[in-house]
């Protein structure tokens, strides 16, 4: 499977794109992920792809790498129409991707990782180990990576793994290199090294698609930009012709056209207070308070530490410092069981793994934390369980064939309703919702929002972690923005705008 594609001569950046996508549309059940979008990549240039979470960036990367097939649209590579029915086709065409979490093999060596799928062979069809190592050494040398090709990948740090991924990109002589948030897990020094590498790839005439949420690096490294919003192409051009403000405006748009429930409620006394919450690696110095009947939004980029704070509050992880008070009383929360007893419940982002117990029927999912309530002396009372499950599933308008149906057979939105019903049945005081509408279809989304408003109106305190700006703006009374494990801002009233959220989350300097 040896493919050799010559990179075009390095040097002057021509105005002809090496790769262009036009009119790309991709629909998933219930969601239009991409709608008639265009993207062009130029040899020797870095194009930044910018957009909020859910704007369709990952979908376009998956189309480019042959993982998804577009429903409509054309891909043109070096002037010729192409299709990538499989990932191998994309690789053979010289397109390679370096992901946030690099897709590499921990138990194989550096050299094996670089050449996986296209290792040099002897004439007997066996892997030519000396050639493999020699070529790996040569490629690693080209990117100044001081790595032993024989070393197992497991022993490398995340930055070195990125270097291996880049070496892998070079080994197939890629014409197009996609970097999906490559600096998300790197330190400052490592980021600098990555920038130099990007410069070198540019100089070799490769086209680079650079996906990042960090504005400083986009302005430093990119030559062009393309902005997606809600699966649509909203603008592209040269970086020299745009400033930060304009880019933010393009990203978030002005139309918050989703309809959110009108909120008529009274915010009562403080019921939860967190002071000086800290974790050795995930977050530090987190202090906030939550009042009765309030919806407190937590906004931030993926990896800002929001879920980690919530999971510590719920007793899944142990904070190293900090105090939690509920109604003024200090509560030590060392396990989810203790959190539930203290009245704090958590609807996790990872519904399939942490939220629902797939394999158990709906009613058993709902009564799982309330068994002490439905049972007598430790013995189950099924009639009580069905009664409790019925009460809360009907309140949430669950769509299911029967209460003894496996929760795994339900749609994402209905599974979410089961998880929420499970917690409401425990009659909590604080409910934490982590990305409550992620992967939920539009109809169920509105139902979840309406229900959230209803809960707050009934005096429940709600914490909502969300990466969707419209949802944050439409639902929250107050918003805490987190960045890199710290609270970056607390916004409410007039200060709560899409621009302020993005600025604080991305750490764009100066503005308060």
């Amino acid at each position, binding site marked *: 499977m040896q493919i050799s594609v010559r990179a075009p001569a390095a040097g002057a950046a021509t105005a002809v794109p090496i790769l262009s996508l036009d009119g790309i549309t991709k629909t998933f059940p219930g969601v239009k992920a991409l709608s008639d979008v265009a993207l062009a990549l130029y040899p020797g240039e870095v194009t930044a792809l910018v957009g909020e979470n859910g704007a369709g960036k990952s979908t376009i990367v998956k189309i480019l790498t042959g993982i998804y097939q577009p429903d409509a649209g054309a891909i043109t590579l070096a002037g010729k129409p192409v299709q990538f029915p499989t990932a191998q086709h994309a690789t053979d065409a010289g397109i390679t991707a370096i992901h946030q979490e690099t897709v590499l093999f921990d138990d194989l060596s550096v050299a094996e990782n670089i050449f996986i799928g296209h290792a040099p062979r002897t004439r007997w069809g066996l892997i030519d180990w000396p050639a493999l190592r020699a070529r790996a050494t040569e490629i690693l040398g080209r990117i100044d990576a001081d790595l032993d090709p024989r070393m197992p990948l497991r022993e490398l740090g995340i930055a070195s793994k990125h270097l291996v991924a880049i070496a892998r990109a070079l080994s197939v002589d890629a014409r197009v290199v996609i970097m999906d948030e490559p600096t998300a897990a790197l330190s400052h020094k490592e980021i600098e090294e990555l920038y130099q590498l990007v410069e070198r790839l540019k100089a070799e005439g490769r086209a680079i698609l650079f996906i990042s949420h960090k504005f400083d690096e986009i302005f430093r490294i990119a030559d062009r930009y393309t902005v997606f919003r809600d699966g649509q192409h909203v603008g592209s051009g040269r970086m020299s012709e745009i400033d930060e403000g304009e880019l933010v405006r393009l990203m978030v748009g002005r139309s918050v056209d989703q309809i959110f429930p009108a909120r008529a409620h009274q915010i009562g006394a403080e019921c939860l207070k967190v002071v000086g919450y800290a974790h050795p690696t995930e977050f530090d110095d987190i202090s906030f308070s939550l009042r009765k009947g309030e919806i407190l939004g937590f906004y931030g980029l993926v990896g800002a530490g929001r879920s980690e704070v919530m999971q510590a509050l*719920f007793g*899944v992880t142990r904070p190293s410092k900090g105090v939690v008070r509920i109604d003024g009383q200090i509560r030590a929360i060392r*396990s*989810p*069981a203790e*959190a*539930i007893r203290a009245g704090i419940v*958590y609807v*996790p982002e990872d519904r399939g*793994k*942490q*939220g*629902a*117990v*797939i*394999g*158990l029927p709906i*009613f*058993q*999912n709902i009564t*799982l*934390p309330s*068994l*002490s309530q439905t*049972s007598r002396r*430790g*013995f*189950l009372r099924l009639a009580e369980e*069905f009664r409790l499950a*019925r009460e809360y*599933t*009907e*309140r*949430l*308008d*669950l*769509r*299911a*064939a*029967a*209460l*003894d*149906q496996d929760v795994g057979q339900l749609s994402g939105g209905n599974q979410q309703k089961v998880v929420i019903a*499970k917690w409401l049945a425990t009659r909590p005081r604080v409910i934490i919702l982590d990305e409550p509408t992620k992967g939920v279809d539009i109809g169920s989304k509105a*139902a979840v929002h*309406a*229900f959230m408003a*209803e809960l707050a109106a009934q005096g429940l305190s709600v914490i909502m972690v969300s990466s969707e700006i419209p949802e944050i703006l439409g639902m929250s009374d107050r918003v805490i923005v987190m960045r890199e494990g710290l609270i970056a801002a607390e916004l409410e009233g007039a200060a709560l705008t899409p621009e302020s959220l993005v600025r604080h989350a991305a750490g764009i300097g100066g503005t308060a």
Partner: protein
Amino acid sequence: MTDTSARHIPDRLHSAAARLLKSWEVLLLAVAVAIFVANSFASPYFLNAWNLSDATFNFTEKAMIAFAMALLIISGEIDLSVASIIALASTAMGAAAQLGLGAPALVLIGLATGLACGAFNGALVTGLGLPSIVVTIGTMSLFRGISYIVLGDQAYRGYPPEFAFFGQGYVAWVISFEFVLFAVLALVYGVVLHRTNFGRAIFAIGNNPTGALFSGIQVRRVKFILFLLTGAMSGIAAICLTSRLGSTRPSIAFGWELEVVTMVVLGGVSILGGSGSIPGVVIAAFVMGLVTFGLGLLNVPGIVMSIFIGLLLIGVIALPRLWAMRTR
């Protein structure tokens, strides 16, 4: 929420009868009946109350362990050291008998040894987070190894006469003490697994340990208790077996762990955890007992018998899968 028409969701999709008919237990029961009928035709000695009573000893001790093992496997763990726990418990009882201790003390020692071994396994698995299959393969060698060091090629004999009751006594007519114990334990385990909060927690953990933890289940505590129970049941099996044999050798109950696991899996417990039932394990115990007894009456050698058990296991497990493929 517009509650103009709160739609009604029925409790159950299928009636109790329909669920029963489609269940694994019914299929297995049919297999048991078929083997029973085949045996009664194959050997004139089969349909004899005393012979049948003898046959129950083929499975009662293993089944006691299988009940606890079923709970453990449903929760997503396994204990392969059970046969070695029998060896260690039996050795401890033998040593105590040499010192002249009476039957009540011996029972306590057997039970305590089982509990201690279970606690050791449980602590390693839940405390250190080690995989149970690795831990218990290790303790399988460790526990039996201690027996070999203590006994070498010797054997303990000379148990007090009243100790014989546990493995050789009869409660009434042909009903042995072991069989009664088996029946009582089956009932207790059935109730615990299917009718208590603890049993529900076991199913939740087996289907999704993270989800169970996030629902407030004390996952590690439940698993530790299950290891304790498995150890205790191995101790009880050691009491019965030692009493029945009247002697202890380090090779006692050799290879039983696989027969116990076979019984559990044959009973319809998913080896991946999350599903299974005690009635299924009870029927599986009878199936295995009847097969070994029937083949024994026909003078089939032990090696061939294990081939039969192996084929039976694969056959019964593969049958529903093949059926599903045909009807798809």
